[in-house]
C-alpha cells in the first residue's frame, strides 16, 4: 500500500519543515510550543523511517525506494534518492538520535530555544539527504548544508571557547569538501555530463585520474571521520559544543565521512582505493593505537570521549579498506553501535555537567553515592565503549578484527590493542568519576536522573543491549549491499 510513497523524501523534508515551523514560533516566551513542535517533528521523522526498514528487501542488490525527478535540467542534475542496507541503518540511527537530542535539550537550553531545536531538525533532514542521495551534486549539497547548522550550534550554545571551535570546525570541513566538489565536477565532465553516482560506478578511469580523485575524496571524508592527522578539529568542537551538538556530531556527522568512503571512494575509484589502501590502513591503525593512548591522559571527560570516538572510527576505516565482507559489515555495525554509545556517553557527561557545570574528571568522585541509577546506566555505556561482549560495542570490533586477520595478522593484532586501551581509558575515567568517597559538596548535592533523562538514556541502553545480544536484524540488511560494494571494488575500472 505504501509502495510508491516517497518515504525517503518524507524522511528528509519532515524534519526540515518541522524546523521551519519551530523557527516560526519566534522568541523564547513561546518555548513550550517550540519544544512540542520539535518533538512531534522528530518523532514523526523517525516514524516515517520505520516502514523503510519493514519494507526493505534484504536479499535484493542495488538501491531501493528510488525516487527520481529532474532538478537542474541545464546541468542534468536530478533529485535522485535511493538507499541500500548501509544507508538504511544510518538513516534510522539519525532519525532516532534526533528524537533523543530534542528530548535532551528540553530544559537544559535556556536561550534561543526555537533556533536551537530548529538547527537540529535541519541537520537531521540534511543528513538523511546525504545518506539517501544518488546524485553526486545532491549528495554534495546536503553534505555541505550540514555545516551551517552545526557551525551555529557550536558557536551559539557552546562552551567558553566556542568561537574558536566553531570556526575551526567550519574551515576544516569546508576545505575538505571543496576539493570533493572539484573532483565531482571533473567526473561530470569525463562522464559526458552526468552527476549520477550510478553512472560513475560504471565509468572507466585511468589510474592517475583515479588517484587524484581518491585524494580529493579522501581530504573531504577523512576530515569528517576524522582520521589521524586531520582530527584536531574534533576534540575542540566536542568540548565546546552543547551536549546535543556533541551527540549529533559523534553519533552521525562523523559517519558522513565513512559513508562517503563507502558510497563514493570505493565504487568510483576502486583501483586507486586498492593502491592507497595501505596508507589508509596505516592511518587507521595509528588512530586506533595512538589516539587510544592520547585518550588515556585526558583530564576532561568530553575530550576523552572525543578521542575515544576518533579511535573507534579508526576501526571503521580499517574495516572498509581491508575489502572483505567481515570487515565491511563490521565497519557499518561499528558505525551504528558507536552512534549509540558515543551519543550515550556524551549525554551522560551532559547529565553531570548540567548539575555541576564541570567536565573535569578531577571535580568528581563518588557520584554513585548520590546518583545510583545514573551510575548503573553509565556503567553499561562505559562497558560497551570498552567492547564488552553482549553489548553492541563488541560486535563491530570483533567483526573488523576477524576481517583483518584474513588480510594480515598484524593489522588485527594492532587493532586488537584497542580492547585493552579502550577498557583502560573508559573504565579508569568511570572509576575516578563514579566510585570512591564523595569528593566535594557539589557531588554530595547531586540528584539522580529525572524522568526525561532516564527515558533518553534508557532507550539508548536498550539499543546497545539489543544490538549486542541479537545483532542479526542489523547485519542481515547489510549482506546484499556489502556484496554489491565488494563486487564494485574488485572490478578494475582501468580503461
Amino acid at each position, binding site marked *: 500500500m505504501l509502495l510508491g510513497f516517497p518515504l525517503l523524501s518524507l524522511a528528509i523534508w519532515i524534519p526540515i519543515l518541522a524546523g521551519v515551523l519551530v523557527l516560526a514560533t519566534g522568541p523564547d516566551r513561546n518555548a513550550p510550543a517550540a519544544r512540542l513542535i520539535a518533538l512531534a517533528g522528530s518523532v514523526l521523522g523517525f516514524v516515517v523511517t520505520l516502514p523503510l526498514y519493514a519494507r526493505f528487501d534484504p536479499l535484493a542488490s542495488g538501491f531501493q525506494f528510488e525516487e527520481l525527478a529532474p532538478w*537542474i535540467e*541545464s546541468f542534468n542534475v536530478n533529485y535522485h534518492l535511493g538507499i541500500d542496507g548501509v544507508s538504511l541503518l544510518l538513516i534510522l540511527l539519525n532519525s532516532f538520535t534526533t528524537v533523543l537530542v530534542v528530548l535532551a535539550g528540553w530544559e537544559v537550553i535556556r536561550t534561543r530555544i526555537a533556533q536551537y531545536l530548529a538547527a537540529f531538525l535541519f541537520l537531521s533532514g540534511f543528513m538523511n539527504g546525504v545518506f539517501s542521495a544518488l546524485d553526486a551534486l545532491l549528495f554534495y549539497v546536503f553534505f555541505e548544508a550540514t555545516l551551517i547548522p552545526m*557551525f551555529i550550534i557550536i558557536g551559539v550554545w557552546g562552551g567558553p571557547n566556542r568561537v574558536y571551535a566553531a*570556526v575551526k570546525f567550519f574551515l576544516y570541513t569546508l576545505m575538505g569538501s*571543496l576539493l570533493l566538489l*572539484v573532483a565531482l*565536477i571533473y567526473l*561530470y565532465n569525463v562522464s559526458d555530463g552526468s552527476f549520477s553516482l550510478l553512472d560513475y560506478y560504471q565509468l572507466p578511469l585511468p589510474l592517475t585520474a583515479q588517484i587524484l580523485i581518491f585524494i580529493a575524496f579522501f581530504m573531504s571524508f577523512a576530515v569528517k571521520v576524522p582520521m589521524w592527522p586531520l582530527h584536531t578539529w574534533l576534540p575542540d568542537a566536542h568540548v565546546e559544543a552543547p551536549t546535543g551538538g556533541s551527540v549529533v556530531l559523534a553519533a552521525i556527522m562523523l559517519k558522513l565521512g565513512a559513508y562517503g568512503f563507502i558510497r563514493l571512494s570505493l565504487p568510483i575509484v576502486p583501483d586507486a582505493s586498492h593502491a592507497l589502501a595501505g596508507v589508509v590502513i596505516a592511518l587507521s591503525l595509528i588512530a586506533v593505537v595512538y589516539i587510544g593512548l592520547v585518550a588515556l591522559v585526558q583530564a576532561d571527560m568530553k575530550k576523552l570521549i572525543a578521542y575515544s570516538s576518533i579511535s573507534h572510527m579508526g576501526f571503521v576505516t580499517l574495516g572498509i579498506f581491508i575489502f572483505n565482507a567481515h570487515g565491511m559489515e563490521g565497519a557499518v555495525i561499528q558505525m551504528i553501535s558507536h552512534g549509540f554509545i558515543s551519543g550515550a556517553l556524551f549525554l551522560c557527561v551532559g547529565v553531570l555537567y548540567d548539575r555541576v557545570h564541570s567536565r573535569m574528571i578531577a571535580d568528581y568522585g563518588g557520584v554513585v553515592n548520590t546518583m545510583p541509577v545514573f551510575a548503573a546506566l553509565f556503567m553499561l555505556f562505559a562497558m560497551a565503549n570498552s567492547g564488552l561482549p553482549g553489548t553492541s560495542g563488541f560486535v563491530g570490533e570483533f567483526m573488523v578484527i576477524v576481517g583483518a586477520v584474513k588480510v594480515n595478522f598484524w593489522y588485527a593484532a594492532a587493532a586488537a590493542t584497542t580492547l585493552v586501551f579502550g577498557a583502560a581509558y573508559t573504565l579508569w575515567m568511570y572509576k575516578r568519576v563514579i566510585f570512591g568517597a564523595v569528593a566535594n559538596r557539589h557531588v554530595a548535592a547531586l540528584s539522580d536522573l529525572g524522568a526525561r533523562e532516564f527515558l533518553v538514556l534508557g532507550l539508548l541502553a536498550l539499543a546497545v543491549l539489543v544490538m549486542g545480544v541479537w545483532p542479526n536484524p542489523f547485519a542481515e540488511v547489510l549482506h546484499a549491499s556489502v556484496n554489491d560494494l565488494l563486487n564494485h571494488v574488485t572490478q578494475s575500472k582501468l580503461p
Partner: protein
Amino acid sequence: MQFITPLLPAYPELFLLAMACVILVVDLFVSDEHRVVTYALTQIALAGALATTFLTSTAEPAYTFSGMFVDDLMSDVLKLLVYIAVMVLLVYSRAYIAARAMFRGEFFVLALFATLGMMVMISANHLLTLYLGLELLALSLYSMVALQRDSAVATEAAMKYFVLGALASGMLLYGMSMLYGATGTLEITRLAEIIAGLGAKDVVLVFALVFVVAGLGFKLGAVPFHMWVPDVYHGAPTAVTVFIGSAPKLAAFAFIMRLLAQGLGAEQLVEEWQRMLIVMAVASLAIGNVTAIAQTNLKRMLAYSTIGHMGFLLLGILSGNLVGYSAGMFYVVVYVLMNLGAFGMIMLLSRGGFEAEDLEDFKGLGARNPWYAFVMLLLMFSMAGVPPTVGFYAKLIVLQAVINAGYVWLAVVAVLFSLIGAFYYARLVKLMYFDAPADTAPIAPRGDVHVLMSANGLAMLLFGILPEPLMALCIRSIQASL
C-alpha cells in the same frame, strides 16, 4: 509613425532619457518636503523602462542606428536586471540618503543617467556606442560619489575614482583606436568578421587587446587594476557604494561579452586574452580574498570580496565558450543580488549620524533582530558559496566551465581561495550570532525595505533550492545572443 518604428529596439533607452529630462525639470518645482515626488517619478520611470523592455523584447537580435545598437535576448535580460537592481537599491537607500541631506533631485537624476549609460553599454554593437555608454555611466557615478560635498573621504574617493577611471577610459580608447587601425571598422559584428578573415595573428591586434583588457580590468576592478575599489567603496556614501557595486557589474559583463566574446572572439585572439584573464583572475582571487581578512571595515571587506568575486567572474569568461559565458552571466547576476542585500543591510542598520559600516556594528545582531541576522547569514553564506544558497551554484557552474575548458588546476586554485574567502564571511556570521550586542538601538525600517530585504535574503535560499529557471535563462540568453 512610420519613421519611428526603426528605433523600436531603442525604445527603453529613449523612454528613460525622456523621463530623466522630465524629472530634472519637475524637480525644480518641487520643494524639499515634497521631494518624495521625485523619488516616486524615478521609480515610475524605471518601472516604465522595465515594461518597455519587456514589451519590445524579441527573440532575434534587432539592430538600429545603422547597426550601432543591438537589442537581443542577453541585453533584454541584463537590462531587466539592471532596472530591478536600481529600483531595489533606491528603496534601500531612501532613508539613508534622507538622513544625510542627499535626498535631492540630483541623486535621482544621476541615478537615471547612470542607468541609461548601462543600458547603452549593454546594447552597444559599436565601439563608440560602447564607449558612450561607459562614459555616461562613469561620469554619473563620479558625481554621485562626490554628492556629499562636506565629506572629505567622499571627495577623496571621487577624485581617486575619477582620475583612475579617466586613465582606464583613455587606455580603452587607445586600444579601440588600434583595433580601428587594424581592421578599418568600429562595428563589433563587422570587427569579428574581419578578424576571423585575417587568419594569422596580427601584432597590432594583440597590442590593442592588451589595452582593451587593461581598460576592462580597471572597470571591473580586477587585480592589478583594483587600487581604486577599496577606497571608493569605503569613501562613497553607502547608497552610492551599493550603486557602484551592483548594477554596473551587469553592464560590465555585457561590455566584456560584446568586446571580447563577440568582437575579439576569433580563435587566434581567444588564446591571447585567455592568458591575460588567467593572470588577472588568479591575482584577483588571491589578493581580494587574502586582503579581505585584514579588514575591520565591512565596506572595505566587501570591496576586497568584490575583487575576489570579479576573479571568479573572469574565470567563467576565460573558458572562452558558451558554457563559460553563461556561467559568467549567472555568476554576475547572483553577485549583484548578494551585493544589494549586503550593502542594503549596512544602510538598514545605519541611521542619522551613524554608519553601521564596521564589522563590530554587526555584533549580536542575532540577539537584536533574529530575522535580519538570518537574512544576513544567508547573504554571507551565499557569498562564501555554501549550499544550499545560490552562491554555491554560481561557483559550481563557473568551476564546471573552467574544468570543461581543461583548467583543472585553475579550479583547484579558485577553490582554495574561496576557502580563505569563507573565513571572513563566517567571521561576520560569528559576530552576529556568537557575540553580545554592542548597540541596542531598535531596528525599525520602513515596510517596503523590510519586505524587499526579506525577499532579497530568501531569494538566496529560493534560487539555491531551485536554481534551474535562472540558470536556464542565462544559458538561453547567451545562446541566443552570441
